[in-house]
């Protein structure tokens, strides 16, 4: 039996993730943490009806509840899907909080609470964290900090548990409502969910949503600053 803890569960990717976990024959307990758990009741019933796994819903606000959250016993696998993009009605403090400081504090507490049972931590960052760009550098810097945190965590605990850094590019979610993106760079929520489980099973350290993004990241890093600074639209 495996126990999952998923943060940012009210998302298309989490829906597919829960369904993928349930469709395997393994018996699992999945804790879903989200601000509005009412909308996840259908998913919970689906898991109970169609599989041997069970889903537990817990109301959780990443901005408020990190310090007081009571961790369930025996968490094996933690998956962080929470994130917020910079936008007109999102403050920079919230962007930094949700994408970096709060999850870091959460993971620090998780490691203490689940010292014995923890097998893997899956951290979602972003291609925006590979190099700061004019478009979204507050968001990008928080994600960059998260990439650095995951890297350090992996080095410190590589004998204890797996740390996977996930660096996605375009995902076919709400983030593409306003943006147009070439199809070959876009991953569906369903494929991301499968990728997450595959990466954990194969014990991968750093995962990109598509191979093309690994290439783009490599190029981004190597463009000389003198050129890069002029590349903004």
């Amino acid at each position, binding site marked *: 039996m495996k126990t999952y803890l998923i943060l940012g569960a*009210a*998302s*298309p990717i989490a*829906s597919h993730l829960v369904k993928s976990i349930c469709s395997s024959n393994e018996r699992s307990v999945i804790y879903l943490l989200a601000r509005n758990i*009412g*909308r*996840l009741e*259908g*998913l919970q*019933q*689906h898991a109970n*009806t*169609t599989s041997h796994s069970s889903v537990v819903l817990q109301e959780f606000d990443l901005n408020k509840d990190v310090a007081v959250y009571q961790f369930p016993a025996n968490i094996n696998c933690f998956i962080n899907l929470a994130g917020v993009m910079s936008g007109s009605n999102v403050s920079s403090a919230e962007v930094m909080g949700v994408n970096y400081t709060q999850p870091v504090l959460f993971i620090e507490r998780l490691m203490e609470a689940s010292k014995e049972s923890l097998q893997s931590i899956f951290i979602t960052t972003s291609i925006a964290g590979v190099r700061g760009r004019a478009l979204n550098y507050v968001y990008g810097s928080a994600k960059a900090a998260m990439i650095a945190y995951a890297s350090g965590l992996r080095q410190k605990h590589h004998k204890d548990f797996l740390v996977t850094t996930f660096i996605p590019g375009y995902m*076919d*979610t*709400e983030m*593409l*409502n306003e943006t147009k993106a070439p199809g070959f760079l876009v991953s569906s929520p369903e494929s991301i969910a499968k990728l997450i489980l595959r990466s954990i099973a194969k014990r991968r350290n750093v995962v990109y949503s598509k191979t093309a993004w690994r290439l783009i990241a490599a190029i981004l890093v190597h463009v000389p600053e003198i050129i890069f600074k002029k590349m903004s639209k």
Partner: protein
Amino acid sequence: MIIRDKNLTSWGNNPVIRSKEYQPYFVEDVSKAIIENSEILATGNGRSYGDCMLNAVSLSTLHLNNILSLSNGVVNCQAGTTLDELLRLMVPKGYFLPVTPGTKFITLGGAIASDIHGKNHHKDGSISNHILSFELINHAGDTVSCSRTNNEDLFWQTFGAMGLTGIIVSAVMQLKDVETSYIRQTVIKLKGLAETFELFASHQDTTYSVAWIDCLSSGKSQGKSVMFLGEHAKLAEINKCLHLAVHKTPKLFVPFNLPSFTLNALTVKTFNAIYYGMAKSEADSIVHYDPFFYPLDSILNWNRIYGKKGFTQYQFVLPPEVSFEGISKALTIINKYGAGSFLAVLKLFGEGNAKAPNSFPEKGYTLALDFPINTKNLQAISELDALVKDCSGKVYKTKDCFSSIPEAIQSGKFQSQQNLRYTGNN
């Protein structure tokens, strides 16, 4: 909520329109989408044929596919759940769909909107006879629970209303108990239409009956057909280690649109000759439900064989007293135009559901035909239309794209290109 501008088309690949599509993962988002727009239409898995699912603003129910409960032979699931997903869950537990069309890749919401029927209509009626209740979100964004005792007018009106009464978000359906997932099938080769009709009439007690018709044969052999009869096999009748085996995921697919001339009178004639030639009359063979009900599902994207121009279906039902004459005339029309239809299917309907005013099935014989889209075939369709009108028959909206027979439904916020076309007809 995910919102995309995309090309929307049904299984017939014609017509194609641009549509702003909402893709909710949560039921609450459905109300939001309804309130935000002055016009909207729910879509399912896009297996209907004509323009009934097309609208400039649409809402895909495909991610609302949670199965909420299954107990005592009653399933409660969200509207975007496909029959494929339901079968995978229910068959191992000894249940089967009370009514199923020729594909399992449709959603339950779509099944209600079309009031689908199956090979057992003469015995079990359409799906409206087996749906116990559903939840629908109306034009104001409010959830309305509908059943035989609660909001019953809206309940019955919704069957066959093609989604124009609101967006169904979940439904409760009574399932059928089965001992095995196999069908005891009898295949009978018939030489003409008269024989086919006789056999339908004499097999009204058989649960499943349907006939494939060679619609390009003429003269004496007009209406030569292969009849398929079936019953759910009992446990004692089969010799399989897994008696409640679920269907497999199809592996074959058509990778791209074939040229539009692929299906012409000659190729269809050849196909029909081979199909009829290879069919063998046999009694009581045991087959799995998958090839019996869903032979075409074994090839994904089979609609691509009709080419980029797409195809359309034309299904009509004629009252029993004029059925024979009418269907014989219809076959003559198809022959005249060489409008080869290789999926021609004949079936005897039982009584329709009198409570459901928008439901299609009515007592009599129904013939379903498919035509690649070209001028000749459209002429054939308009001639068939005149014939059906003469015989006081009905045309199935779920498959229709060109008929002038169906009537529009009074509707406010929920609108489809098809309904607007019918409004123009009147």
